[in-house]
């Protein structure tokens, strides 16, 4: 299993945000996390690159495993973990730098200074993020000159540049127009070959289109986790059914 959670409980101060979560996510699949707003999807996702570490006054119990390794173990270096587990955020948020520098950033902060290698990785990442053809002539222009959808693909390229094996995506298309959204979805489809992807989404059709497995969260609990087809055609739990059909109907 690529990603595993064993009896996870997570607290913001006194607020019990995640309650006894168990999940096992296989490699090279796309897993969608769905559920009503505030149910803990983002909190759960952010456990796996230890992004919640930056929030004060939180508590975690249970085990988060990546490749069988407990990532909250004292021997684990956070920056090493984050090199392996990339993240794409809800809003496109390029750095106030050029397109090239945005993609090169992860390499540079990880101590890579070989200019030729960096240039190669930038090109490969932009190709992988289906953005290369649109930006190859303006690599040194500001990233803000790109459209929202292009910026989001730039953020994906930025995450891919440091060669992670896992990509966490928190509603990556929710701020985008339908055409940009379908481009991102196509991209996820291609990236699945090489990466293990966990994507949070509010869009049921999107979950159905892009994912192999789906987890349904409610009030901090993982209500149901199964193959996407089964989840949408024949959910076991009545709450899941209500949520899915409620959204569809």
């Amino acid at each position, binding site marked *: 299993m690529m990603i595993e959670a064993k009896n996870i409980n997570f607290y913001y101060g006194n607020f019990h945000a995640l309650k006894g979560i168990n999940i096992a996510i296989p490699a090279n699949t796309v897993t969608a996390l769905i559920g009503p707003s505030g149910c803990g999807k983002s909190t759960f996702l952010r456990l796996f690159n230890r992004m919640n570490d*930056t929030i004060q006054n939180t508590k975690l119990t249970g085990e988060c495993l990546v490749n069988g390794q407990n990532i909250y173990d004292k021997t684990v270096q956070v920056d090493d973990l984050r090199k392996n587990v990339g993240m794409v955020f809800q809003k496109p948020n390029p750095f106030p730098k050029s397109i090239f520098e945005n993609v090169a950033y992860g390499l540079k902060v990880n101590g890579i200074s070989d200019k030729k290698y960096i240039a190669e990785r930038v090109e490969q990442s932009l190709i992988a993020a289906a953005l290369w053809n649109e930006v190859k002539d303006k690599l040194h222009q500001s990233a803000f000159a790109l459209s929202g959808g292009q910026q989001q693909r730039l953020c994906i390229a930025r995450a891919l540049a440091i060669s992670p094996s896992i990509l966490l995506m928190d509603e990556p298309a929710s701020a985008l127009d339908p055409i940009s959204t379908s481009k991102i979805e196509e991209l996820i489809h291609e990236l699945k070959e090489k990466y293990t992807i966990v994507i949070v989404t509010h869009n049921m059709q999107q979950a159905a289109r892009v994912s192999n497995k789906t987890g349904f969260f409610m009030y901090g609990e993982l209500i149901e986790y199964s193959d996407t087809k089964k989840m949408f055609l024949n959910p076991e739990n009545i709450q899941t059914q209500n949520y899915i059909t409620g959204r569809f109907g």
Partner: protein
Amino acid sequence: MRFPMKIVERLLEGVFKMSSSITSIVILLIIIFLFKEGFGLFRSPVVENGYGLYINSKNPIADINPTQIKQIFDGEIDNWKTIGGNEESIYLFRFDEIFSIYTDEELGENYQFLPQKLNNIIAENSNIIAFFPKKYMQEISSNTKEIATKNIEITDFVLGKEWLPTTTPSPLFGIVPLVLGTLLVSFLAILIALPLGLGVAIYLSEIASNRVRGIIRPAIELLAGIPSVVYGFFGLVIIVPIVQKVGNISAGETAFTGSLILAIMALPTIISISEDAIRNTPLALRESSYALGATQWQTIYKIVIPYASSGISAAIILGIGRAIGETMAVLMVTGNGAVIPHSIFESVRTIPATIAAELGEAPIGGTHYQALFLLGCVLFLFTLILSIVSELISKKQTSKTA
């Protein structure tokens, strides 16, 4: 009910309109007054009112400028040839010398013969230049002529290297030493305050816990409220002796001392504005940086500081603005020597300190008074430029966040 409300609204609108137009007019009037008084300097004679400079009528020199007058009377120019006259050494004649040449009797009981005698002396000496009150030269004889003195020119003011507002016969109003003094003290202050202020801002926004920040931030804001005389006093009593001892110099009142005080005074501005700018860096940018494996320090200097750079530059400029206009504290600790500084451990005098120190003794409407107003104009231009620059920078900032 509706009708009276309307009237009240109309009235309020009128009041607001009026107060804003009155404010604008007052500001405009002040600026006009400042420039009008200041520019009077270029229309005033350089020689003290009621006095004149007289030479022998054979002397070909027709006019003379303030710097030449000063150099002649200081003995730096001792030959007419230097200023385009005959090859003849200059005979400098000051008014009181007449009393050592002639006795009181010869001059007459009411000095009625004095004009005559003066004329004689000038007539006898072709190389003379004499300086005395015009009232003794009511009728100029054919042997004597008054030398025309050129008005002070803008270049004398802007490029003049000497500020000697009370020397006779002709004061010098060269602002170069004052401008250099002001700039030296201000920029040195920023050089000291910037790293400190930025360090504190980064500490407060990135490292300090909320509790620590809750104590330090108000304390720093309190610093901004201390009157500048208090800073000056503190500087005079504490910092001046320390600089004197540590620098091993004869007087601790130096440009460096002034900069230290100004740096302390500029710190609150720099800290609070740059901390705000740093805090305004979107969380998403920081998180994206962390998510790519960057450490906290890498994130600070590669993402946060570049993002906040326009806010930080605005902080610097406002800090300089404060330093340039600051008067009291600087006046108290810089020694106020109006000379072009050659080292930071020399006494300097800034523009505002000059105005504050000299306005009281400058006769209203005189050249000295006008020169001080013109200094005010220069200061106004400095701060105007600074605020335009900071305006441009903050415009850039808003377009970046948009």
